[in-house]
């Protein structure tokens, strides 16, 4: 579904990704874990077109999307819930969700409209808090609610692949649990996901496959269960994650 080959990316002169390859098969949840500054968010940004890669190749649904602008990648069916939520603060929760479905609503949108109202209903069922706050401005939501909105907004694209970047960042422990519970439900629905997380243990708990990123390179990868029991991964990430 999503294949990344030898991806390189840089911010100005500083190279962040030194050629990483990973594969997200259809219907699976793949997680990318690693310490701060390893290049997790950069990988996500390069895949969704927020950042132009300096090398390598990204293939989505058999189409080469390397270097395409973000809006064209979205039209091919990739949704990205970015780091820091990035909801539209001056617009209502409902408008934010409708903007998530922009590619399905407009003439040049290229995504089938499908059952828009049904999807809106399902997104609000998944995040009941948003249903109560539909008419509230997104900027007035709490951090946790904004995270829910960012995820719901990404789902409104009806994506082929969903990128979730740090969905638990800055949330209270009880909300972190809720977010992972929701990711589990999305997985059960068969949604293909690439998940970046600080909470490596929880991410490996929900994922099928995992990649460990160190200084812009893939250090280890394997089925999630195998990584969970890998002593080196445990020492570096799983123990460390619990102390945060």
């Amino acid at each position: 579904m999503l294949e990344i080959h030898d991806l390189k990316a840089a911010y100005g002169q500083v190279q962040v990704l030194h050629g990483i390859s990973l594969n997200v098969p259809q219907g699976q949840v793949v997680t990318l874990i690693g310490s701060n500054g390893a290049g997790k968010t950069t990988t996500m940004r390069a895949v969704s077109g927020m950042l132009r890669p300096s090398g390598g190749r990204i293939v989505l649904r058999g189409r080469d999307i390397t270097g395409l602008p973000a809006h064209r990648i979205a039209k091919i069916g990739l949704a990205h819930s970015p780091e820091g939520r990035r909801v539209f603060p001056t617009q209502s929760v409902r408008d934010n969700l409708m903007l998530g479905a922009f590619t399905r609503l407009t003439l040049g949108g290229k995504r089938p409209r499908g059952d828009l109202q049904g999807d809106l209903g399902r997104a609000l069922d998944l995040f009941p808090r948003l249903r109560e706050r539909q008419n509230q401005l997104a900027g007035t939501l709490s951090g946790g609610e904004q995270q829910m909105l960012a995820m719901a907004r990404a789902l409104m694209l009806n994506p082929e692949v969903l990128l979730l970047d740090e969905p638990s960042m800055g949330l209270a422990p009880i909300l972190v649990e809720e977010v992972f519970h929701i990711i589990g439900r999305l997985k059960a629905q068969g949604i293909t996901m690439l998940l970046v997380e600080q909470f490596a243990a929880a991410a490996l708990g929900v994922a099928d496959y995992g990649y460990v990123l160190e200084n812009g390179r893939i250090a280890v990868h394997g089925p999630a269960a195998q990584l969970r029991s890998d002593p080196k991964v445990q020492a570096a990430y799983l123990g460390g994650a619990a102390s945060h």
Partner: protein
Amino acid sequence: MDILMQLLMSGIALGMIYAVIAFGYQSTFATSGTLNFGQGEALMLGAMVGLSLNGDVLGGPYMNYWLMIPLVLLFGALQGMLVEFVGVRPAIKSKSEFGWIMSTIALGIIFRNVAENIWGRDDLPFPSPLPTAPIHILGANVLPMELMVVVGALLMMLLVEVFNRRSIYGKAVVATASDRDAAGLMGINTSLVIMFSYALSSMSAAFAGVLIAPITLTGASMGAVLGLKAFAVAIIGGLTSGLGVIVGGVLLGIAETTTGFYLSTGYKDVPGLVLLLLVLAIKPSGLFGKTTIKKV
């Protein structure tokens, strides 16, 4: 009392023109963080094209005032797109922080020169589409055209506001204004949105041009001072507030007419600029501008 009323009414009409141009500044600033410093020239071109269609300068008149307006709006939109494509897009792409300032000023000067060559340097009269006999409102004499300026200006801003709030395309414009990268992730072509905002900006200026032309003189140099004062209005009202430009515009308009009468017409530009300096010193985001607070 009647005189004061008269000055207020004239000030409001003038102020609404400033507001429409300032509204154009806001439109591009919101989506791209850039401004078209050739707004005054966009106004002038709108008025000149309107005069050519509606007056007898280039073999016309070809049509009446009301039919001319949609054509002038279309012309304004295209002119704005040209400015964006030639002057602003390259600067945004190369991440040049100030390149657009020079390029939009340069394009403005080019437009003025072209206009001088087509229409000459002299001011021309613009035929009034409405009766020129003043009507009496609250003891003041108001030209029907001045009323039309106020109504037209408010109507235009209202329509844009409705578009932004109700249609998905308008919502995309607002989304681009608040977070361009995130808007791109939604599948919104943000470069197109920026071009659209330039089209809207020049379109409002061109509209202001044909609104004001019948009550002033029309000529290649008519836009320069208006564009500058409208910029002051955008700063006074706040570059992010729709209500701000209306209040700022009317404040400046009234300040000018009253100073012109009670002090001297020679000083009529001073109070507005003093107001501008005061706002910049005391509340730099403008009277109605919001200091953005980001939630992390």
